[in-house]
């Protein structure tokens, strides 16, 4: 048994680690992706007033505070039995769309894009946002920075504070939108639509028109036939802020659709001795280990899965691109629905389609006459004592579950964060990448780190929430051990 460890070397503690175990024949037996545990979150929260949670949970992570804030506020609506007025829900969703635009933009240009725009085998020093901008032009670099900053400005305006927003209250939102703000946001949304279309065109020109990249995207290197999860509206169209959780099976049939509050009837968490992270899986399918297929309860929750569970997109331009993506992958329609795409690298394309949808939805909401209504809050009159709220975080379905006593003081807290949903599939994709590079004891060191990084990068993991983080571009070390665990070779990248 040979072990290969890929270790970021900047952190002596608190880092993720990829372990590759080989069997006696020198083939990959298993791959584990381990991250250290963040401890004591529940203890930290129990005994606090429930209404503090939106401003506590949004500090879990510097990447998706908006997602935690929204899931938390929705959990409080339920815990205090206070249904927000329509305008409040629309303001929340409007802010949330601005957040999606920043998050997906950043991922494409700084994290996911470089693998394609620069090339999967380019040196790591060039595979970053600088390389992307050198290739596509300085003007686009400016557009990326502008896009982030105009949407951060909207988030700050609507949320009362940048990054760790403070606008959410049980039963609504703490401030209404003025007509001047509405006009400004409308302009931002229009620019976002142009920017999203333009980003899709870059993807088209650089990836889809390049035979080598297209083959990589459509190859079976990162193909897993799993179940898919996402939130849909009443017409089974993806919605990031609210709806029912829909799961489709690997053949595209709806397996179940349930309100977020019922998650415990459908999702169980598997604990493995070699990691602190729990693997969520579909309870009613069962745990078969890190395997794909109809009998394994492994599911993913990503931009790709959200599109896979949707019958269509709720906005016109995103719908055109949605159809084009499924057609490109040769997905057939059965009962009016496209069959799911199992190629994980299509996640990058799906993310850009979501960027376009978020931009269009932002414009719809900014043009909605009700968005400037002053009626943004229902004052809670009761304490129900249990609150479950969920939203689609960019990196998967995020659920907050609180229980309080009759005074509204928390007695228990459970979170299932976006990245955790994908922990099993991420490990599977890393294993698939490793299998392609290691066989019969022969190890293709060249490109190994890149291919393995690509496997987890496409899931856009945010481990600051799930546990702690793994750097987006990490100095890595591959340690190869023989069956007696002695190091026989080390591959390192600084």
């Amino acid at each position, binding site marked *: 048994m040979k072990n290969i460890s890929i270790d970021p070397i*900047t*952190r*002596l*503690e*608190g880092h993720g680690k990829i372990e590759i175990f080989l069997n006696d024949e020198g083939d990959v037996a298993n791959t584990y992706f381990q991250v*250290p*545990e*963040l*401890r*004591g*979150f529940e*203890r*930290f929260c129990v005994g606090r007033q429930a209404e503090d949670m939106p401003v*506590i949970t949004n*500090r*879990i*992570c*510097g*990447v998706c*505070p908006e997602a935690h804030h929204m899931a938390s506020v929705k959990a409080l609506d339920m815990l205090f039995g206070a249904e927000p007025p329509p305008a409040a829900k629309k303001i929340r969703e409007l802010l949330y769309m601005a957040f999606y635009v920043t*998050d997906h933009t*950043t*991922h494409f240009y*700084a*994290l996911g894009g470089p693998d394609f725009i620069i090339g999967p085998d380019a040196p790591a020093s060039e595979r*970053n*946002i*600088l390389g992307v*901008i050198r290739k596509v032009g*300085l003007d686009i*670099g*400016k557009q990326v*920075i502008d896009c*982030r*900053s105009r949407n*951060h400005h909207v988030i700050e305006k609507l949320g009362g504070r940048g*990054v*760790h927003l403070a606008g959410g209250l049980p039963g609504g939102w703490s401030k209404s939108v003025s007509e001047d703000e509405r006009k400004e946001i409308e302009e931002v949304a229009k620019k976002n639509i142009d920017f999203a279309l333009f980003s899709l065109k870059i993807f088209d020109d650089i990836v889809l028109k390049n035979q080598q990249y297209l083959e990589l995207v459509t190859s079976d290197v990162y193909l897993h036939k799993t179940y898919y999860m996402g939130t849909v509206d009443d017409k089974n169209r993806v919605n990031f802020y609210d709806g029912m959780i829909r799961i489709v099976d690997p053949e595209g049939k709806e397996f179940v659709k349930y309100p977020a509050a019922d998650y415990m009837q459908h999702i169980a968490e598997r604990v493995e001795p070699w990691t602190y992270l729990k693997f969520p899986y579909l309870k009613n399918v069962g745990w078969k280990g890190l395997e794909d297929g109809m009998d394994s309860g492994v599911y993913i929750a990503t931009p790709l899965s959200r599109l896979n569970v949707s019958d269509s997109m709720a906005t016109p331009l995103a719908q055109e691109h949605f159809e084009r993506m499924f057609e490109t992958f040769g997905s057939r329609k059965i009962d009016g629905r496209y069959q799911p795409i199992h190629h994980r690298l299509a996640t990058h394309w799906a993310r850009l389609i979501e960027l376009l949808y978020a931009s269009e939805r932002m414009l719809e909401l900014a043009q909605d006459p009700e968005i400037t209504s002053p009626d943004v809050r229902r004052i809670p009159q009761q304490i129900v004592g249990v609150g479950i709220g969920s939203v689609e975080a960019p990196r998967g379905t995020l659920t907050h579950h609180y229980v309080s006593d009759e005074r509204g003081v928390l007695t228990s807290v459970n979170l299932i964060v976006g990245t955790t949903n994908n922990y099993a599939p991420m490990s599977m994709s890393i294993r698939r990448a490793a299998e392609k590079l290691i066989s019969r004891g022969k190890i293709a060191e060249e490109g190994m780190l890149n291919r393995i990084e690509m496997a987890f990068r496409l899931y*856009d*993991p*945010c*481990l*600051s929430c799930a546990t*702690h*983080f*793994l*750097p*987006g*571009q990490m100095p890595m070390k591959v340690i190869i051990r023989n069956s007696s665990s002695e190091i026989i070779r080390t591959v390192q990248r600084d």
Partner: protein
Amino acid sequence: MKTVIIGLGNPILTDDSVGIRVSRAIRQRLGQRGEADGRNDTVDIKEVYAGGIRLMDAMTGYDRACIVDAMMTGRSRPGAVTEFDPDELCGTRNMMCTHDTNLSTALELGRMLNMHLPSTIKIWGIEASDVTSFSEQLTDEIERAVPVAVNAILGELNFDAQGEIS
């Protein structure tokens, strides 16, 4: 001269919040002043919760920046305060953002796009001991390092204890 002091970290992750705590202590000491008497010297104090491009954004428009963050090098005792330049950066805990890029790449991006970035950037790292437990309290040695770091940074920036620019 426009100076920004940035406290970096997660405010609810025990010692990871030390950079934020130092920046708050500096704010108390200086007061959040705008312009100093008759000169165009200003100091702004910010808290930033993620590295990479957000950190670069926070420095845009300043001539001088000072970043305070927790680090885990294992090379010095918990509570040790170390100053270094970005080019010798071994990486403090939050300079890197998992969702975009590291600080040096973000700075290079800003320069490439002709953004106004500080010509002087100083980084202060404070060796931490617990960065994986949720708590708003620092561990003892790190708590004791806060005034040390405050004095070191103010000394470096040529402020006396009353916070007057000397």
